[in-house]
Each structure stands twice: as structure tokens, then as C-alpha cells.
């Protein structure tokens, strides 16, 4: 096994057995399941209505019972037979029925006790209108279809559709948030583990046993693997949860954007990880870490809030500019605002940026890792003799 692979293995095992990490992951998964589960429950909610009918109106209420689910999937109607109008009012008053549908004057009335049941009213209106129009048509010697021919109005959007846009916006926010959370959490951990090794001088034992480059590679690869695993689990849980909601039909359509998100996440995460490792190497003690990691913390925050706040042209430009592109381009993709070639250009630029941060990071890490006694300045680290 190569030295870097041994280091990678340790990083992965340490992280996966870390209680705080396990608990944090479970909490976030529970949160995801909770949100999608609640949405699914909201969507699948079916309202049952008991509707009273006097003998004269039985046929219409029976028709309502039969046809209401067709009109509105979330409405179920049960007909409740009552003897007369006063029995119907009594049943309404003591809550045995939700409504009383009866003929009134020239038309029909849906009487409810104290609140308007909108979904029941809409369903009733459609069913009654259909039945009455059919009856009138028959009386006039024609059919309902003949009367209504050419009168249908359908709606269509010039661009996309509202549900898809809302979903895109929500998915984009989740992408940005997951990146923000992961890179910050793993970044701080990575910087902490580097300074822990420095402070304990174990780095001197390791550096005399293997090239420092291997130690850095193992740490970055190990943390990236665990972060990717965590994100894959999050996204999978999110997509499975989503499939149970009314947005479930869009899940196959999200596969492409999710794959792009993984690609951008990977490149962006690795770029930042090598910088977090440098932040750890510049410190000599845990107490220095605050100072050496602040620029990175700020950068990650700017990346996150920038992805939410940038608008118009600025947003398009930022979606190509590393490191912002790591967050913004996947958002534009899932919002169907960017095409594949735009994504490819942004990814290429981001990969180039990642390569630069790895090369710069490796030099700074190598030259500051074994310097003890206080914080190492960036300039000093860059020009330090090896």
C-alpha cells in the first residue's frame, strides 16, 4: 500500500468513527426526511366530506359521491341520507355531516355550518354543473359535449412551468447549502487535524517516514471521500424523499443536474481542502487556527451568500468564475438556466483553479508544516527554505 493510501485509510476510518460526525450526519438526514415527508403528507392528504341529502336530491349527491374524486383527487364524498330539511340542519349543527347539498330556487346550494369548504365547493360546483348541463342538453335534444364543443380553455407556459421552477430554486438552495456545510465542516476539521499533528510533533515522525506530499494527499483524498459519501447519502435521501411528494415526477429529470453537482462539488471541495490544509500548517497551536482559517471561512461564506444574492449578468459571470462556479453553476443547471457547454467551460475553469490551489497548497503546506513556534506568515511559508 502506498503511503498516501495508508494515510487516506486512517483519515476515512477516523472520520467515519467520529461520534460528532455520525450524529451530525444522522441529524441532517432526519431533517431531510422530515421536510420531504411532511411535503409528501401534505400532498397525499385526502379530505373526506360527509354530505347530507334529502330524498328529493339523492341522485345529485350520489353523483357527487361518484364523481368528486375525478374532479379533485384529494376530495372524497360520502352521501348521508337524511329525512328532510330540518334533519339536515340538525345533522349539520351537531357535526354529523360537513355539508348539505340541496336544490334552492333556480339552482343548488351547498350549506355548511360555519366555514366554507373550498375544495368541496369547487368539486360540487363542477359535478353539479356537469349534471345540469347534461340534463339541459338532453332536454334540448343535443348532448353536453355538443354544447361545450370548442369552449375548452387550457393553460400553457411559454417557459418551463411553475412547479419545475420552484423545484429548481429549492434544489439550487439545497446544493449551495450542502456545499457550504460540507466544505466548512470538513475544512475546519482538516485544518484542525493538521495542526493537531503539528502540535503533537507526530508530524515529525510521519515526515521522517514518508514524503510530506503523501501525507497531504492522503488527508485531502480521505476527507474528500468521506465528504462525497456524505453528500451522496444526503442527495439520495433527498431524492427518495422527493419521489414521495407531488414533485416525484421530476426526480428522473434531476439526475443530470445532480451528476453535475457532484462534479462541481468534487472539484470545488478539493480546491478548498488543500487551502484548509495550508491554514492548518500555518498554525502551530490550536489557538492560532482561528486566525489562519478566517480568510477561508469568509471565502466559503461569500461563495454561499453570493450564490443566493447574485442576480442577472453578475450571476452568469460568477457562475464561470472559480471558486464561485463550484456553487453557482450547478444551481444554474438545476434551474435550467445553463446549457451543457456552459457547464463544461465552468468545470474546466474550476478544475484548472483546483490544480493551481493544489500546487500552491502543496508548496505552502510542505514549507510550513515543520516550522514550529508561532504562526507562519504566508509570505514566509512561500519563500521558506525546505
Amino acid at each position, binding site marked *: 500500500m502506498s503511503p498516501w493510501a495508508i494515510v487516506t485509510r486512517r483519515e476515512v476510518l477516523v472520520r467515519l468513527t467520529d461520534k460528532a460526525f455520525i450524529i451530525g450526519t444522522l441529524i441532517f438526514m432526519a431533517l431531510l426526511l422530515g421536510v420531504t415527508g411532511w411535503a409528501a403528507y401534505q400532498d397525499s392528504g385526502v379530505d373526506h366530506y360527509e354530505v347530507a341529502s334529502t330524498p328529493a336530491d339523492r341522485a345529485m349527491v350520489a353523483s357527487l359521491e361518484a364523481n368528486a374524486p375525478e374532479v379533485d383527487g384529494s376530495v372524497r364524498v360520502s352521501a348521508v341520507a337524511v329525512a328532510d330539511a330540518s334533519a339536515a340542519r340538525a345533522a349539520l349543527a351537531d357535526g354529523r355531516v360537513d355539508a348539505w347539498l340541496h336544490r334552492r330556487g333556480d339552482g343548488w346550494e351547498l350549506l355548511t355550518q360555519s366555514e366554507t369548504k373550498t375544495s368541496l365547493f369547487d368539486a360540487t360546483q363542477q359535478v353539479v354543473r356537469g349534471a345540469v348541463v347534461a340534463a339541459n342538453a338532453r332536454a334540448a335534444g343535443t348532448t353536453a359535449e355538443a354544447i361545450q364543443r370548442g369552449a375548452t380553455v387550457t393553460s400553457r407556459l411559454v417557459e418551463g412551468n411553475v412547479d419545475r421552477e420552484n423545484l429548481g430554486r429549492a434544489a439550487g438552495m439545497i446544493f449551495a447549502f450542502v456545499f457550504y456545510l460540507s466544505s466548512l465542516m470538513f475544512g475546519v476539521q482538516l485544518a484542525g487535524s493538521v495542526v*493537531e499533528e503539528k502540535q*503533537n510533533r507526530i508530524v515529525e*515522525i510521519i515526515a521522517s517516514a514518508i514524503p510530506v506530499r503523501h501525507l497531504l494527499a492522503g488527508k485531502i483524498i480521505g476527507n474528500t471521500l468521506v465528504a462525497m459519501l456524505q453528500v451522496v447519502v444526503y442527495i439520495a435521501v433527498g431524492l427518495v424523499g422527493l419521489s414521495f411528494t407531488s414533485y416525484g415526477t421530476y426526480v428522473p429529470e434531476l439526475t443530470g443536474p445532480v451528476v453535475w453537482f457532484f462534479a462541481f462539488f468534487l472539484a470545488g471541495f478539493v480546491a478548498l481542502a488543500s487551502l484548509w490544509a495550508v491554514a492548518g500548517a500555518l498554525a502551530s497551536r490550536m489557538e492560532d487556527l482561528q486566525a489562519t482559517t478566517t480568510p477561508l471561512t469568509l471565502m466559503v461564506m461569500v461563495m454561499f451568500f453570493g450564490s443566493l444574492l447574485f442576480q442577472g449578468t453578475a450571476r452568469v459571470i460568477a457562475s464561470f468564475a472559480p471558486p464561485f462556479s463550484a456553487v453557482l453553476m450547478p444551481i444554474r443547471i438545476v434551474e435550467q438556466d445553463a446549457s451543457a457547454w456552459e457547464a463544461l467551460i465552468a468545470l474546466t475553469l474550476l478544475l484548472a483553479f483546483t490544480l493551481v490551489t493544489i500546487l500552491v497548497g502543496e508548496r505552502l503546506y510542505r514549507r510550513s508544516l515543520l516550522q514550529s513556534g508561532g504562526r507562519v506568515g504566508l509570505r514566509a511559508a512561500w519563500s521558506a527554505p*525546505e
Partner: protein
Amino acid sequence: MLEVRNLTRRFGDVTAVDDATFSVPGGVMTGFVGGNGAGKTTTMRMIMGVLGITAGRVGWDGREITTADRRRFGYMPEERGLYPKQRVIDQLAYLGRLKGMDAGAARRTVMDHLERFGLAERAKDRVQELSLGNQQRVQITAAVMADPAALILDEPFSGLDPAAVDAMADLLRDHTARGVPVLFSSHQLDLVERLCDRLVVLKGGRVLAEGTAADLQSRGPRLVRLVLDGDAGWVRDRPGVRVADLDRTTVVFEPADADAADAVLRDALHRGRVEAFAPVIPSLNDVYLEMTK
């Protein structure tokens, strides 16, 4: 054999190690002594390649040392600690694997060493749960576990009780017995005197002396102590003699040569009874203090 030749390290305007030259031969323990800031740690870090060398070189088996050579060395840094939250067995096995051992061999060797130190049942404990002395045993295990070609140990005995010092010294002797050079730093001279075959004395980054304890002790003036049953003041007037100390019946003097000393003894026997006549061997501590004054 490890050879340090004209090794120099500067930090800005400060010269921490100044043209140091000494050898660490195989099969013996070499003590590295010197006060705080003498440059011991800096020298050891340069030998191990974890600190850059300003000038000079480190030789191994008659040639320039390489990274591959150093990888086979066992090293125990100063102010050390291991991963506090990782289990003893896991992190020692990890360090063993980084040294090129396979996983099974690393675990076996670790358990052998832990048993030797009576720590076998603590193998699954986290390092931070061990006492400082036990942590030190774990650290020395990390240094010696991979059958090192040389041992570079920075203050390996600090903070250990006498029994632990003996156990660790025995362990180190096992390694010198198979011909390995061992260099360890210490500021406890009595310990160095007891354990070491050779010494290197460092002060202000410069090597003041190198050799066996007897070599060092014989570098000072050769003094003779004479105890008589009467007053010893007459010794002052003998030719070829410089009196260093006189306390009524006891005199410590430096003879110009062996004949001058013999003449004093003959005279003393002539004058009365001689209680004692012996060379004065200075303690290593006195030699060191004299040398680093």
C-alpha cells in the same frame, strides 16, 4: 555509523548549530548532552531531515544520507504526543505501516512491545487515557518497532521513574546489541554517565567534546589525593607539584609527572603513616560544568 560533519543551521541571524562534527558509531549508545538552547533538538531534526540544513552534511555508512536511509531510522521528537483520541494499537500499527511494515507484522510487533512494558491490556485505550509515563512508553515503541537502522531519540527519559528508565535502557541495549547506532539527548548527566558508552557535549551550537566518559574525565588536570595521619602542609614545598586543595591532613595536588607524584609518596611514607593515596576522578558532572563554564 552516523556521521555529522560541519553541520550548521541558522534561523535568521541566530546560529542554532554551528559547524558541529561528531560520530554516532553502531552498537553503542551515544549521549547527547548540553544545556537548554545548546542545539541538541535542532541537530537531531536536521539528522532526521525534518529541518533543512544550512551547511554541512550528514553521512550514513560512509556516504551522504538519503531519504530512504532516514525512513529506516527510529525517531522520537521532543515535546511529543501522539494522536490523543486514537487507540494505542491503531496508531502504532498506523505508524508501523507508514514505515513500510505490513498490517499484521505491525500489530504483532506493537503487541510484543506493549507486553514488554506491561501495557498489553491498555492496547485498546485511547492515548489520552494513559499516564504520561505510559504515553512515553508508547512513543518509544513507535520509534523502535520497525527494526530501525538507527535510533535518534530526543529526551527519551524525561519524566520517567527509575524503573521505567531501566526498562527503556534495556530496550535500547537490545538495539545496540544488534549493532544499531543510538543517539539520545538528555540533560540528566548521571543518567548519561550510567547508560552511555560515548558522549557528545554541545554548547551554544558547537561541539565541545566527544568521546567515552573516561576520555572526557581524563581531559582535565590529573589530580592526586593524599591523606596522612599528620599535617600535610609540607607538600606545598615539594618541587614539581601544584597544590589544588589543602585541608590539614588531606591534600589534593597536581604533579608535573608520575615521578613527582612518586617522590611525594616516598616522602610521605618516610614522614609517617599514609591513609590514602589515589588519583582523583572528577564526576562527569564536574567535567561538564568545567567544560561548559
